């Protein structure tokens, strides 16, 4: 009787090792080189709207759709954390009408997508100086964080009213309060104590592996200043509403191509 053995990992008759292709990833991406934490500065919504003679609201709504696409791709491709710079401390100086529009869009987006977050096992964390936000939005954020805190498949960190300098200062502030209660000795503050108090400590992977900034600008604009020390920087030319799967794949492939250093 002849025997044939089917080996599901594709070994030939001679038992040669053959390279496995991960079919859940687009061609070219390697599973072991997928970043765990990706950060995005979502720049270009207003320019996108202006270039189409549309109201700035359309730009932000298109940007929200782009964000949903990227979240889906992150979940599909095994990225564990996505941080997005939604509203910086400097953005408070924008026209009041525009700021109110953005706050209402945040509120609506969180309400509409709560079901998706729960269904897809997504944890939501919001970082930034939330005391400046409208009270209704603050309450919504607290409820959403509480509701999703045990979700483990993917974490979306939304930075609102945030700046990197604010994050460092609030970390020092927390340490000062701990010192007042005798939990920290004066003179004992070091880099690891500050790290523990940064707002990104809500994540298992607080330091982004890859930062993407859209719209062709080559700066980090006060986003996660402390956390980005060894993060690969990718500056994409397209505006945020146009940043889709192809562009995201390009960023991930560029990340895989580069060597990384960790202060070594």
């Amino acid at each position, binding site marked *: 009787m002849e025997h*044939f053995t089917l080996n599901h990992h594709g070994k030939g008759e001679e038992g040669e090792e053959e390279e496995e292709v991960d079919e859940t990833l687009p061609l070219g991406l390697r599973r072991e080189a997928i970043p765990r934490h990706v950060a995005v500065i979502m720049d270009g919504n207003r320019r996108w709207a202006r270039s189409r003679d549309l109201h700035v609201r359309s730009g932000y709504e298109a940007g929200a759709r782009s964000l949903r696409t990227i979240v889906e791709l992150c979940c599909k491709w095994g990225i564990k954390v996505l941080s997005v710079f939604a509203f910086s401390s400097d953005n408070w100086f924008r026209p009041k009408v525009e700021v109110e529009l953005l706050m209402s869009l945040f509120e609506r987006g969180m309400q509409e997508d709560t079901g998706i977050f729960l269904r897809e096992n997504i944890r939501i964390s919001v970082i930034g100086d939330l005391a400046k936000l409208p009270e209704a939005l603050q309450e919504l954020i607290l409820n959403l964080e509480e509701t999703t805190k045990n979700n483990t498949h993917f974490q979306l960190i939304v930075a609102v009213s945030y700046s990197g300098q604010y994050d460092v200062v609030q970390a020092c502030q927390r340490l000062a309060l701990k010192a007042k209660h005798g939990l920290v000795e004066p003179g004992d503050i070091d880099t690891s104590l500050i790290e523990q108090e940064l707002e990104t400590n809500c994540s298992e992977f607080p330091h982004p592996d890859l930062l993407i900034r859209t719209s062709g600008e080559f700066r980090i604009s006060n986003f996660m200043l402390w956390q980005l020390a060894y993060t690969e920087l990718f500056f994409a030319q397209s505006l945020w509403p146009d940043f889709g799967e192809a562009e995201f794949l390009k960023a991930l492939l560029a990340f895989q191509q580069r060597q990384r250093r960790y202060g070594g």
Partner: protein
Amino acid sequence: MKSLTPPLLRCLCLNRSMDFIRPKRMLYFWIDKIRNVLLRLSWHLVHSIINLCYFTTGMVHALESHLISRGLLRKYKSLHISKIRYLAIVIESEDACRTSNVIELLQWLAALGIKHVSLYDNEGLLKKSKDIILEKFDGAVLFQDTHENNVLLDQPRMTLEFVSFYDGKEAVARAANVLLMKYIKSGGIGSNQGEQIFTESQMSEALKTVGSGGPEPDLLLIYGPARCHLGFPAWRMRYTEIQHMGPLTCMTYGSLIKAIYRFTTVRQNYGK
């Protein structure tokens, strides 16, 4: 004729079904094999295309850099250098000992009229070599932290600052200790949760106190294989333009001109 006994019948049925299953299994085996081969070929093809794209892009950049160095591209002939008040250079620590490359880079920058340069490497090797660099590059003075910004800009010679990880996160930790001491000495007023105890300007002042209060660079050039700033004092780079230049050993005058030109065409709105 001997009748077929049940065991014999079962054996015959088994053999018949094995006759059906065997070719089917062979078929699935070969389909699986061919599919794997095709997938692997596609994967290698994609990677080859990507590598070819990077190679082509590299060649184009090299040619452009050569043409810029020769002054053959008109648009790079006049640079608005006055837009760069402070320039930072980040160098991989592995290359930081190549003082001849560093000095050549500084000479190019001096020729272009750049007045203040911060030289950074994570491990502080450039700091250790600063005497050698200042001796061999006699067009510069050492940056003193006590200089006010307007004094820096008025210097006829280039001001050089040597920076390392000690001036980055570690400096922020030292500054935090300074703030904490002041807070405790003041009795801890404003100490309720949620009230602001420290401000960003207080942190900036504290950084100056600990000797790490340099200016915010307008442009930061990264010389190294990785496109990351390797721990350059983050407090100082909120709105700094960042350009990756490739390894220090591959630096060219043309790519430097191109990076500076690009910076001078940028318009920032600082989030507003």
